[in-house]
């Protein structure tokens, strides 16, 4: 009988373990894996040389796992901030990512450890920024930006008859419920089977700033994730919370799939530009 308990335990561990981290291990690994599939052989070889011959996928959640060990790693924020009026990125998350990319452009001159942490930051946080639950809007009309909307509140998840943090639902719930039992290679294979060059060019055009603005704009206007399940005080009862129903979940699976692919393609673009020579 132990075998069945083990089976159950495994199902649950696989199902729940990544609920505690970033965009979830599976989504992070899927994004990095899609990126890897689009690296030029030179870029792949060069970046892997910097990270002890490992795949970038190995480090996709490194920042989540190791952030408690070093204050400066902890500061590399995972949620991106935007001006609600313009959807332009503001504040430290954008600044740090820009600085990481600029640093990596000089990777041959930098100490190994700096290059490593910069790569870990890039392969993790760029993924996080593509998660709609990691988009936080600020009112920037006053002297200091004022936080308006983030995903850190509870919703009622109707198909599972349970309440859940909206952030966590986006982080990992959607990816795991969307395709239970899948690994990152399954996600990469399924989403990135025959994507056209035209599509790749269209989503990778522009700068980091343009991409982030694109994410914030989509989240606000196309995906409408905050409009569809508005903020309710998490102290309120289950039946007073915003409801996410099966129909919304199906839309959310699609949004997550789209964002994972776009995130991977953009990550590849950055790595190819920097490490492709």
């Amino acid at each position, binding site marked *: 009988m132990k075998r069945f*308990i083990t089976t159950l335990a*495994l*199902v649950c561990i696989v199902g729940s373990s990544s609920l505690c981290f970033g965009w979830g291990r599976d989504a992070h690994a899927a994004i990095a894996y899609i990126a890897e599939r689009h690296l030029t052989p030179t870029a792949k070889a060069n970046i892997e040389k910097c990270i002890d011959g490992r795949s970038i996928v190995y480090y996709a959640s490194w920042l989540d796992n190791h952030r408690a060990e070093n204050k400066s790693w902890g500061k590399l924020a995972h949620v991106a901030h935007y001006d609600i009026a313009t959807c332009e990125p503001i504040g430290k998350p954008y600044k740090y990512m820009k600085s990481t990319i600029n640093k990596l452009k000089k990777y041959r001159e930098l100490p190994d450890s700096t290059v490593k942490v910069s790569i870990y930051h890039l392969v993790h946080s760029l993924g996080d920024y593509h998660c709609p639950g990691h988009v936080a809007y600020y009112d920037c009309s006053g002297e200091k930006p004022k936080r308006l909307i983030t995903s850190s509140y509870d919703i009622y998840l109707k198909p*599972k008859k349970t309440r859940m943090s909206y952030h966590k639902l986006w982080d990992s719930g959607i990816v795991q419920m969307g395709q*239970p039992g899948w690994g990152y290679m399954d996600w990469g*294979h399924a*989403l990135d*089977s*025959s994507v056209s060059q035209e599509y790749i060019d269209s989503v990778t055009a522009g700068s980091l700033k343009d991409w982030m603005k694109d994410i914030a704009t989509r989240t606000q206007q196309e995906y409408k994730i905050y409009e569809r399940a508005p903020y309710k005080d998490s102290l309120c009862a289950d039946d007073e919370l915003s409801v996410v129903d099966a129909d919304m979940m199906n839309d959310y699976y699609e949004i997550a799939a789209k964002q994972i692919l776009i995130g991977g393609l953009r990550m590849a673009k950055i790595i190819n530009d920097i490490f492709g020579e």
Partner: protein
Amino acid sequence: MKKLTFLLLFTVVFSYCAMAWDNRGHSTIAYIAERHLTPRAKANIESYIGGRSIVYYASWMDFNRSTPPMDVTRDWHVDYWTDGHRTDADGNPQPPCSLTQVKRIVSEMGNFRELSDSLVNINIKYLVHLVGDMHCPVHIDFPTSRPMKIKIDNKTVKVHAMWDAYVLNSKHNGTSPMQLAEEFDILTAEQIAKVQSSTPDEWHNETVEVSKKVIDMIPESKKITYDNYFNEAIKYAEDRITVAGYRLAAILNSIFDK
């Protein structure tokens, strides 16, 4: 401990209830099919589903069957079976569902280029799923097995749920569908050709026979263990998944390899 129990239930029971194969089973079928698509068929299919693999849509019908307008497909997955005939849950005679739908779609898709993109798109999602369901032993739902309660460890589940959540996991836990396809897709070209040569009606009849066998295999005590059930049942599960994959490839090639 309450939370633990809840999560166990939540993960195992709720997420699988009343699906024929679970997501992994369906994904594996789609992978096996994909490995046997002609390059032209694969390219044609993927041009209708946004450059994604058919694997992505393997369980799409399960995820979308509760909400309108897709709720009309709710009954396409399972056949209730009384005395050699398909019935509805109340015992009224009905044509077998997934079989009828598969035949309808295949005939409709004969000239797929003349159909709207959205119709071809949804028909691909239907076929990818329903050919799998047609091969799942508990897809045939007998009046005797329908209410049957199975005891696994301290849990009581219905036959259908037992197949969904436990059979494949009893041996292949932690294995991704991509890997399962690699492990199951081992028939020779001649064997594959033979498997593919039969008709959907014959596949359906085959499933009826297999269904009877896997129900008969349940011990009288209704207490199921690896040794008294899953060890044997897994062979049927693997075989049906593999065969479904080859046949799905045959259907898709016949439609799209032109």
